[in-house]
């Protein structure tokens, strides 16, 4: 028998925590606010002109619809009639940490790309991800990080003629990074 990967079994459904309910309510309120903004500003784009509907009519109608539906959803959440409001928002603290780690990592990667260039930024991202999350042997981590950064850069730019970001720091640019 060989071993391979599989997702954990689905967790048992539990009643919604107060925090979970608040996240749903906050989202619904944000939707109402955004819909209100759309409905208020859309008429300024022109609802109707001599040729027919103006640029603002469609967003105005859809904005009102979005607002009404979001209020209905908020009422459903508050009165306990909405689907999907159950258990904790994150299944576990470890799960939340992993999501935060990856989301933060992707954002840092996007910030670093134009500064450090694709090769260095991606190398750092992949090496950190495999080291912290995957906990692989450092030689494997290094090999994959090199392949996913310098290897991919060479493949995409030379073989597929795809342009990728280079560093904005002159010293690094001069090094071909």
């Amino acid at each position, binding site marked *: 028998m*060989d*071993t391979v990967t599989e997702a954990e079994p689905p967790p048992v459904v539990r009643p919604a925590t107060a925090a979970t309910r608040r996240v749903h309510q906050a989202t619904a309120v944000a939707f109402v606010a955004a819909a209100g903004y759309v409905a208020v500003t859309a008429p300024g784009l022109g609802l109707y002109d001599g*040729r*027919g509907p103006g640029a603002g009519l469609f967003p105005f109608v859809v904005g009102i619809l979005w607002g009404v539906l979001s209020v209905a959803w908020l009422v459903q959440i508050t009165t306990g009639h909405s689907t999907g409001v159950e258990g904790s*928002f994150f299944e576990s603290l470890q799960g939340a940490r992993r999501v935060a780690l990856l989301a933060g990592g*992707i954002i840092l990667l996007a910030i670093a790309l134009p500064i450090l260039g694709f090769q260095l930024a991606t190398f750092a991202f*992949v090496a950190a991800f*495999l080291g912290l999350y995957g906990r692989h042997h450092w030689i494997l981590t290094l090999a994959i990080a090199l392949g*996913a950064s310098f290897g991919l850069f060479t493949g995409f730019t030379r073989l597929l003629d795809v342009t990728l970001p280079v560093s904005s720091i002159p010293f690094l640019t001069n090094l071909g990074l």
Partner: protein
Amino acid sequence: MDAFGNLIDGFGTALTPEFLMYALIGAAVGTLVGVLPGLGPTAAMAILIPLTFHLPPVGAIIMLAAIFYGSQYGGTITTILLNIPGEASSAVTVMDGHAMAKQGRAGAALSVAAVGSFIGGTVACLVLVTVAAPVAKLALNFGPPEYVALVILGLSLILVFAGKSIVKALIMGAIGMLIATVGLDPISGAARFTFGIPEFFDGLDIVPVLMGLFGISEILINMEARLTKVTQAKVSSLVPSKVEAKQASGAIARGTGVGFVLGMFPGVNATIAAFTSYIVEKRFSKTPERFGKGAIEGVAGPETANNAHANAALIPMFTLGIPGSPGVAVLMTAFIVNGLNPGPELFTQHPEVVWPIIASMYIGNVMLLVLNLPLIGLWVQILKIPYSILIGVILVFTVVGAYSIDNSMFNVWVMIAFGLLGYLFKKLELPVAPLVLTLILGPILEDAIRQSMAIFDGDVTGFLHHPIALTTFAITAVIIAFTARRSVPRSEGDAEA
């Protein structure tokens, strides 16, 4: 020239080494995507669209289409050997497929599934050739009022995609429509919701939006549910016994019919087709008690049905320009970014594109049969790659893809933003499919309404003089009424939740 003449011409193009290579790459990637739990075909296509910008349009779409239908094949391997449905549409196969594997009949289950998938896919493709061109010809008579009616019919699919809550589905539909309005209005030139950001003037590119909503969000969800290790069954002889072959042949024939018919209805997904086929097989069987314990019909029928469905689902897109599922919507995006508008005019204006793509689907199905039977061992080996390595590499590819759309970081940020939003939507059980549907159909609807109102001099009753539009509105009303009626007990269920 008739449809089959056009198809033969299409084969002439699709059989050139260049396009054969694109079909092979697509079939291999599709199988890989199906094999890997946690990465669906929709996410994979969304991630790979930007990387196809450097390919010829026909080659790019041949490759993406092969990923779409190829993933159905690959999903079977993990379903049978590991008890993990690689794709949702393979979920029903778990019951009998894995039971067969535990009895030492994994090889027979895999070969019957692959042969059934091949037959279902190719027969559906044959009917697609027969049906698509006449339907498209009929749709050529459509003007803006007919398109208004047709797109509203397409938007009524939101109710079908609604899942547990119609309110949530409609909210997501509204959000998709509003995202589609961002940018300069094509008629008046007014800047809509651009907030003075120059990159917003051309509107949001749909590709990074889809990459975020499907690709990044799926990876974040998988990260939260950390992956663990399990055991895998061994592959036995691939040749089924005579009794098994006889039992499977009828199931394959019925699965083809079920999959194709359901595939033509937008909104009915491959999972429904597979489950319907399973129910049909159980009802047809003289020994229904075998089902769930290793009945080969329980593998052959559903696996055939989901592949027949994947091919038939392309008919509404090819002929009417309406995507019936999120996967088809992403494929439709590939057409649009390559300057091709799916719909009736595709057959008349770009026959050099549409027929090679259809022809390549036959070729792709043959390739998938070859890839999936002798190479099963290879795909199983790939499953041993740690998931953390796969995620790391896939993320780098998504960044490269988003950046290469127009060589700017803006689309990378759009992808990240929609990835985080997509994660939030999934956690809140807000369905993404309606958002994607309206994101694509919203601009078409707005243009058609404005053109219609210009034709009618602002008189809405002008629609009453267009019988095709009226008939389409009536069909939409029936769908809405039917769905609303069906949702009544669901709403009561909601109340209890």
